[in-house]
């Protein structure tokens, strides 16, 4: 029986691991990916984490992980398939059939990309990672769908590789920060199309074009690849019936991470909060360990 099973190895989970190790709890981090560090690893550059300006997201993630490892954190590679609440503990089961018993759970499973759910959305050439797949579009045409920081960042990244980049957004203004918007404006091979909703990916096996509806009128663009950056959805499917979620699926919890389920705490992007950033995720991880400590003490375990 563990004191704490931490689910997720992004900044929130790793921060919880650091605090749990230092408080000498018996704890384990369960992660679905081998040697994970969360979504931050995919960011080209992180400029707002205090003390480490201009750090690459991958390096930042590695630093977090090294820190947890140096304090003796135990990791388990496995994807959680279910959580059962018992009288005085939780049973966490994994897709490989194994299970763990724990007094508490710190749930820090993060979010996943929101998928482009239109016909053809599964074709070869529809990507969710510009830094992974951008190189396939050297001298070609790509479309980016979305209007936030990720979408504009992707468009800028691709503009250096592709001959032309369409940036397609469903609203008339971008949500991305002003600095990125200025850069996009100045980049001659990015063509912005606003008030546009993608309706169909054209192609047999791989992407050949994208059909869009602009203010109700349908047209099609000839593109070789489509990069999707339309936000994220919380990985909370397995918590249905375990704790309260808001209408978008985020776990309802305050800064202390306390949820409607005794002994289950929420940290990082999965929690209802105003700002989803590394700095708030890291702080959630620390707070959840304190809440777990109080919970264990109050039960005299």
């Amino acid at each position, binding site marked *: 029986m563990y004191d704490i099973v931490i689910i997720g190895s992004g900044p929130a989970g790793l921060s919880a691991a650091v605090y749990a190790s230092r408080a000498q709890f018996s704890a384990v981090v369960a992660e679905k990916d081998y040697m994970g560090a969360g979504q931050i*690893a995919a960011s*080209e550059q992180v400029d707002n984490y205090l003390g480490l300006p201009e750090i690459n997201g991958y390096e930042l993630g590695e630093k977090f992980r090294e820190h947890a490892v140096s304090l003796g954190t135990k990791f388990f590679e496995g994807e959680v398939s279910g959580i059962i609440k018992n009288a005085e503990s939780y049973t966490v089961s994994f897709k490989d059939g194994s299970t763990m018993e724990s007094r508490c759970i710190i749930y820090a499973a993060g979010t996943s990309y929101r998928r482009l759910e239109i016909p053809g959305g599964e074709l070869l050439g529809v990507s969710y990672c510009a*830094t*992974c*797949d*951008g*190189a*396939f579009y050297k001298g070609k045409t790509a479309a980016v769908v979305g209007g936030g920081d990720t979408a504009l960042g992707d468009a800028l990244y691709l503009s250096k590789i592709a001959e032309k980049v369409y940036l397609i957004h469903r609203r008339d203004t971008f949500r991305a920060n002003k600095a990125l918007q200025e850069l996009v404006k100045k980049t001659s091979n990015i063509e912005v199309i606003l008030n546009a909703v993608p309706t169909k990916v054209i192609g047999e096996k791989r992407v050949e074009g994208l059909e869009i509806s602009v203010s109700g009128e349908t047209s099609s663009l000839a593109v070789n690849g489509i990069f999707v950056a339309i936000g994220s959805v919380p990985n909370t499917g397995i918590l249905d019936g375990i704790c309260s979620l808001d209408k978008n699926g985020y776990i309802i919890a305050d800064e202390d991470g306390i949820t409607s389920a005794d002994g289950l705490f929420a940290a990082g992007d999965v929690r209802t909060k105003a700002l989803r950033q590394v700095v708030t995720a890291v702080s959630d991880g620390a707070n959840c360990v304190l809440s777990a400590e109080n919970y264990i003490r109050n039960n005299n375990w």
Partner: protein
Amino acid sequence: MAVRVNAENFNDEVLGAQGIVLADFYSDSCVPCKRMSPVLAELEETYPDTLKLVKININFDGELAEKYEVQAAPTLIFFKDGEEKARLRGAVKKAEIFEEFEKL
């Protein structure tokens, strides 16, 4: 150690090779590719006599990627005696890679 191959020596190193060759199509900037690297190294170390690992950098060898219809990094293609036998697209778990290899 994995060998970097390109369009020029692909025929010799992969198609002309006997046994199993795992071709890793990767990109420098790709985080899932970086994460996959130690897993592939482990596979190579576990089967030193039966597996040959080669890497194709898609930033430089786009034509090979095009020829094999690779449009996501990482993509792992298993060749046996020069013939494609299996393909794994995107980041996959360690167990899946080992399993795929052990089936061949």
